[in-house]
């Protein structure tokens, strides 16, 4: 199996001295649905942000390969494969929902006519059809979340990072979203999910890593890590 993401000895110290990652090794195979769990401040967002080019990484701070592309060498090729649903909603609040998606396509060099089919599908699947002409500022929190999920998928990435995608989404929609993500994964998209809802990880993911204070404490399949116990108990034991 080919690796969708390969991270070797990744370290990151922020300006001001905070060491957010202390030598992380992580390999994720193509087609996996992987959970990255850990308490607040563990380094999950930092790891994802470095991979996506949002947080600066020096060459000596480790290696990150996305579908075989080293982000320090051919970062732009790596980025073509990545879709990111950031933890903090960052869509342009004055733009219309539909327009956010077309603009996103444009950033990847996809023309409006080429993007149309995919965008219609996403508006449909993420129940945003009747909001397509609304400005982002007029959406509720859960709708904004769904919009940034749609936005991350416009260019058909093969590796999708979901940084707490279901925070603030109601129960019913969360179930719809799980169904959607599962279908997406079955269609071949590798997914890396962070979440504080452990049952979400249990439902969706086969393999997971538990990260705490910038280090991976456990890595393996759900069965290996739980070994017959409840994930919550194992998690609390590791991260306390």
């Amino acid at each position, binding site marked *: 199996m080919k690796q969708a993401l390969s991270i070797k000895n990744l370290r990151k110290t*922020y*300006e001001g001295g905070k060491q957010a990652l202390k030598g992380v090794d992580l390999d994720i195979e193509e087609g996996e649905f992987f959970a990255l769990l850990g308490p607040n401040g563990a380094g999950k967002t930092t790891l994802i*942000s470095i991979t*996506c*080019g*949002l*947080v*600066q990484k020096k060459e000596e701070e480790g290696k990150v390969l996305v579908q075989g592309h080293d982000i320090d060498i051919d970062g*732009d*090729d790596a*980025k*073509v494969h*990545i879709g*990111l649903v*950031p933890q*903090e909603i*960052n*869509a*342009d*609040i*004055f733009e219309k929902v539909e327009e956010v998606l077309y*603009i*996103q*396509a*444009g*950033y*990847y*060099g*996809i*023309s409006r006519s080429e993007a149309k089919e995919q965008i219609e599908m996403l508006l449909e699947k993420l129940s945003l059809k009747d909001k397509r002409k609304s400005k982002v500022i007029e959406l509720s929190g859960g709708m904004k979340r769904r919009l940034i999920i749609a*936005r991350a998928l416009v260019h058909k990435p093969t590796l999708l990072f979901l940084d707490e995608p279901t925070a603030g989404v109601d129960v019913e929609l969360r179930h719809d979203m799980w169904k959607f993500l599962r279908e997406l994964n079955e269609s071949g998209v590798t997914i890396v999910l962070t979440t504080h809802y452990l049952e979400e990880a249990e439902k969706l993911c086969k393999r997971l890593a538990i990260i705490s204070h910038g280090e991976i404490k456990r890595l393996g399949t759900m069965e290996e890590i739980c070994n017959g116990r409840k994930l919550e108990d194992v998690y609390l034991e590791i991260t306390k």
Partner: protein
Amino acid sequence: MTPRQKYIAFLTIFGKEVRRSLRTWKQTFLPPVITTSLYFLVFGTFIGSQIKAIGGVSYLAFIVPGLVMSTLLTSSFQNMLQKFYFLKFQKTIQEILVSPMPAWLVVFSYLSSAMFSGLAVGTLVFCSALFFQPISVAHPLLAILVALLTSGFFALCGLINAIYAKTFDDLSIVSVFFITPLTYLGGVFYSVKLLPGIWSKISLFDPILYMINALRYSILGFSDMPVYHSLLVIIVGIIIAFSWILYLFKTGRGLKA
């Protein structure tokens, strides 16, 4: 990205930003036109009639290139500064940093859209001057070239300012302490040849003096210094500013944590 994909990405940013400037025309285009029209009226028509001709043209005609230049450069600078700072502040810059667009393409696309606004304002101001004083442009192609280069240079400066800015307060420093004084001391309202010895020497360190004089030469046919001096100063400025920005993108300074 293929050249075609780059072209689509360019059009996306350019189109989005130009549409936004046009939509907010009351903020983008109207204030500079009203302000400079007042200058033309007060300094040109009311006071200017008391001042003797400079270089064979009326005082009003003399100040037109300087005022066009000063609004052009201020608009280009402010337009880029506000656009890009807003992008950072709202974190929408992340969409762009995550995308495969190379840094130069992002800079070039934003640059083009800020130049569009700057040049539109400059053109409107020039047209409003024609209401007060008919002027025939001596070297029209040169005038366009000078306007393009100056607008580009100041848009790039606005981008640098936006990248370094951490708070809203940081948005006014460059404009208040550098651009405004250098513009007013750059010979908008006078010829540096008329200044007493030391002042005319000091003025030569003011880059905006060269830009104003380049436009004055293109429009009126005379200036305080040879036009190629002015063009050289602007082109060197653009190369430095562009390289500086690419360096900032590469190292992530002010853009990434």
